[in-house]
C-alpha cells in the first residue's frame, strides 16, 4: 500500500519486522531502508560570519537551479549529498553566522532528506497528531486539556467509567489506555452508533474491548424514568419486517445496510450493498429463475445472519442498561459537540457519590451555564472551571527562548466531585437551617456562587 505523507510517498513493506522507533530512509523507489547512524562532522572548524549586515537576499545566492537539483535527484543521489551540494553552491553560506548555518542546514535536510521514523501509537502521539492535523474532528480538544481530563477524572484500572464523546473515539482510546483493559467502560453515543475511528489507531488487544459497552443517548431518559425497553433499537426501525419479507424487503434492506454502514467495518457493508444491488438486477431479469432462487437462499442466510447480529446487539444493550441502572459508576468524562448541560444533568444520575467527573467544552459560556445548573441541582462539590495554557521552548546553547504559546484554543474544562444528593424538601430545609448557623466567612454572597 502506498502511503503519502507530507509530500513524500513510500511503501511500508520493508518496515515489517523492525522494532518501533527505527528510523528509515526513503529510497528512490519508495522503499524503506533502515538509516545508518552518520557521524556528524561537526568537529572541523566551520567558516562562518559574525552577522548579516552584508548579506543581501536577492534570490541569487544559490547557484544550482531547479533543474540542476532535479537532475541530482533523478541520478539517485542521496538527500545528504544534495544538501552538501546546495551548501557548496551557495555564495552566502560561509558569510552566515554559525546559528544561521545550522538553521539553513536543518531546513534543507527537512526538504531533501526523506527520513521516516515509525513509532508505536499512544495517547501522547495520537492526541498531538489529531490536534495538529484534524482538530475539527475532536472539537479542538488540545492534548494538554485531554491530559487534564484523564487525571482529574482519576481514570485508572479497575474502575467503571461512563464516557460520552464525539471526538472520533480519541477520548475513548485515551481512557482505555489508562484503564489497561481492567474495569469497564460504558460509552454513551448519539445517533446510530459510536464512532471509534481513532480508537482503532491505538492498536489495543482484543480483550480490551470485552468490557467496553455502549448505550444510546436516545434511551437515557427512558432508562432514568424506568420505561426503558429494547423493542426499538435506534438504528433498526424495520426489525420485524426483515424476518418475514425477502425480495420485497428491497427498500428495507437497503435502508438497513446503509445504516449499518455507519457502524460496521466497510467490507461487510459493501458486501451487503452488493447483495442488495444484485437483488435488483436479478428481479429485472425474469428469465433467470434458477439464479434468482439461489440468490434468495443466500438472502435468507443473510437475513439469518442479520437476525443473529440484532439479537447480539439487543443483548449487549440490555447488559449496558443493567450496568447503568446500578447507578454506581466511578466517574463521568464528557467531550462532545453537544451542549454540556443536558448531558451532565442526566448522566450524573448514573454516577456513585464521591466520584470525580469532568466535562470538556470548546467554549466557555456553555460551561458557565452548566456550572449554574449543577449548583441548582446539588449533589456536586468542588466545581472548578479551568483551562490550561501550553508554552513550548527552544532550548539550544545561547539560543533558548519560548516558541509558541497555546491558550484558549484548547478548550475549557468543568470538573467536580459527586456527593450524596439531598432529595426532598425536608433535607433542603435542614440544609438552609444549618447554613444559617455557619460562621460569617462561609455565608454565601448573592453573586458569589462558590462551594
Amino acid at each position, binding site marked *: 500500500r502506498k502511503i503519502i505523507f507530507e509530500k513524500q510517498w513510500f511503501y511500508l513493506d520493508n518496515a515489517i519486522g523492525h522494532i518501533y522507533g527505527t528510523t528509515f530512509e526513503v529510497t528512490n523507489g519508495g522503499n524503506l531502508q533502515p538509516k545508518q547512524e552518520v557521524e556528524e562532522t561537526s568537529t572541523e572548524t566551520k567558516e562562518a560570519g559574525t552577522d548579516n549586515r552584508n548579506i543581501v537576499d536577492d534570490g541569487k545566492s544559490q547557484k544550482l537551479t531547479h533543474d540542476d537539483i532535479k537532475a541530482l535527484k533523478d541520478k539517485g543521489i542521496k538527500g545528504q549529498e544534495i544538501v552538501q551540494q546546495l551548501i557548496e553552491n551557495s555564495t552566502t553560506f560561509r558569510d552566515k553566522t554559525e546559528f544561521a548555518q545550522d538553521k539553513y542546514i536543518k531546513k534543507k535536510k527537512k526538504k531533501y532528506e526523506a527520513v521516516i521514523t515509525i513509532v508505536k501509537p499512544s495517547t501522547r502521539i495520537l492526541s498531538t497528531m489529531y490536534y495538529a492535523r484534524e482538530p475539527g474532528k475532536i472539537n479542538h480538544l488540545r492534548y494538554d486539556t485531554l491530559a487534564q481530563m484523564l487525571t482529574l477524572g482519576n481514570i485508572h484500572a*479497575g474502575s467503571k467509567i461512563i464516557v460520552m464523546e464525539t471526538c472520533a473515539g480519541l477520548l475513548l482510546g485515551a481512557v482505555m489506555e489508562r484503564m489497561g483493559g481492567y474495569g469497564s467502560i460504558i460509552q454513551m453515543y448519539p445517533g446510530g452508533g459510536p464512532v471509534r475511528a481513532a480508537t482503532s489507531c491505538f492498536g489495543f488487544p482484543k480483550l480490551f474491548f470485552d468490557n467496553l459497552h455502549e448505550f444510546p443517548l436516545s434511551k437515557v431518559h427512558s432508562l432514568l424514568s424506568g420505561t426503558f425497553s429494547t423493542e426499538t433499537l435506534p438504528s433498526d426501525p424495520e426489525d420485524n419486517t426483515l424476518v418475514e419479507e425477502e425480495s420485497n424487503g428491497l427498500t428495507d434492506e437497503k435502508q438497513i445496510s446503509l445504516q449499518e454502514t455507519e457502524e460496521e467495518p466497510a467490507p461487510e457493508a459493501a458486501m451487503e450493498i452488493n447483495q442488495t444491488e444484485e437483488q435488483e438486477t436479478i428481479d429485472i431479469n425474469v428469465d433467470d429463475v434458477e439464479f434468482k432462487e439461489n440468490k434468495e437462499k443466500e438472502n435468507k442466510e443473510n437475513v439469518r445472519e442479520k437476525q443473529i447480529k440484532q439479537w447480539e446487539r439487543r443483548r449487549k444493550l440490555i447488559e449496558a442498561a443493567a450496568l447503568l441502572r446500578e447507578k454506581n459508576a466511578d466517574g463521568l468524562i464528557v467531550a462532545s459537540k453537544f451542549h454540556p448541560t443536558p448531558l451532565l444533568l442526566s448522566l450524573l444520575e448514573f454516577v456513585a457519590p464521591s466520584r470525580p467527573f469532568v466535562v470538556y467544552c470548546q467554549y466557555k459560556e456553555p460551561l458557565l451555564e452548566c456550572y*449554574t445548573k449543577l449548583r441548582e441541582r446539588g449533589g456536586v462539590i468542588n466545581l472548578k472551571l479551568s483551562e490550561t*495554557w501550553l508554552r*513550548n521552548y527552544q532550548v539550544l546553547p545561547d539560543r533558548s527562548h519560548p516558541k509558541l504559546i497555546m491558550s484558549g484554543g484548547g478548550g475549557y474544562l468543568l470538573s467536580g466531585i459527586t456527593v*450524596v444528593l439531598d432529595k426532598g424538601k425536608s433535607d433542603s430545609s435542614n440544609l438552609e437551617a444549618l447554613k444559617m448557623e455557619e*460562621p460569617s466567612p462561609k455565608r454565601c454572597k448573592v453573586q458569589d456562587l462558590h462551594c
Partner: protein
Amino acid sequence: MSFVEYGDTIKDGDTAIVFLGHESMFPVKVQHGTVTQTKYGVIRHSTDLIGKKYGSKVTCSKGGWVFILHPTPELWTMNLPHRTQILYSTDISIITMMLELKPGSIVCESGTGSGSLSHALIRTVAPTGHLYTVEFHQQRAEKAREEFREHGVEHLVTVTNQDVCKNGFGVSDIADAVFLDIPSPWEAIGHAKSALKAEGGRICSFSPCIEQVQRTCLAMEEYGFTEINTLEILLRVYNVRTISLQIPDLGKAAEDNSLTGFDSSNPSNQGSLCANLQQGTVQFKSGVPLREMVGHTGYLTFATKS
C-alpha cells in the same frame, strides 16, 4: 479503600478527606474511638464515619456539616503535609500523558519529596506496574514508605534511600519511564538511561530554572536521547460570577429609550443579558479569572531513549 481502588463505605484505617466548603478540606485517618475537631464541631469516627458511604454528609456537633470524600491522588495532592515543594495536578497530568504511563508501566522517580507525584504515578501504573522512587533524605524516605503503607499501595512501590546522581535508581533496563525532579538532573541522565528499557523509554526532567534546563538538554543529547522537547503548562481557573454593570445615563433623545442598545422587552435577550432599565443595570454570567498572575512551577523537558 485504597488510593488505587474505590471502596463504597468508610472503614477503620482508611484515609478520608473531610470537605468543609470551597477549597477547604483536610485528610483524616479514620480510627475507632477517635474524634476530629472541625470549625463546625466534632466528628466522632465511630458513629459518624465508620460504616457510612463515601460522599455522605456528616453533621458535626455544632450543627454545621461536612462531606466525607474517598481519597484520590488529586485530593491528596491538594491536602498532603508538605515536606518539600510539591508538584500539582496540572503538571502531573501532562507528565503522565507525555511519559505514556498506563497500567503495567515501570516508572522510576527521583526525588520522592512529599509523595505528591508518587501517589499519582502509583495510581496510573496499578495493578501490574511498579514505581521505583529514590529519595536522598532519610526521614522523607521513611515518611514516604509509611504513607504508602497507610494508603494501601506499598506493593506497588519501592522507596530507596540513596543519591540518584551517584547510585542511580537501583534497577536497570526495565523502566518504561523516568522522572527527575532534582537540583542537578544532568548528573542523573546517565543513570536514567541505564534504568530505562532498551528502546522507546521516555524521560522527563522538571526544573524551575532555564539554566538547569539548558544543561539537562545538553546532557540528554550527549547520551543519545531523541525527541527532546521542553514545555511549560499553566493553569487558569475561572470563577463563575453573575455580574451587574450599570447602564450609563446618556440623557433622553426623544420619547423612547431605544438608543441604549438594551431592549428589555425583546425576548431574545432572556438568555444572556438581563437588562433592568428601571435600575439601569445589565446582568450577565461570566467566567472571571481567579488570579491574573499565573504561577510558574517549572519547565518540563521530555525525551525518548532510542
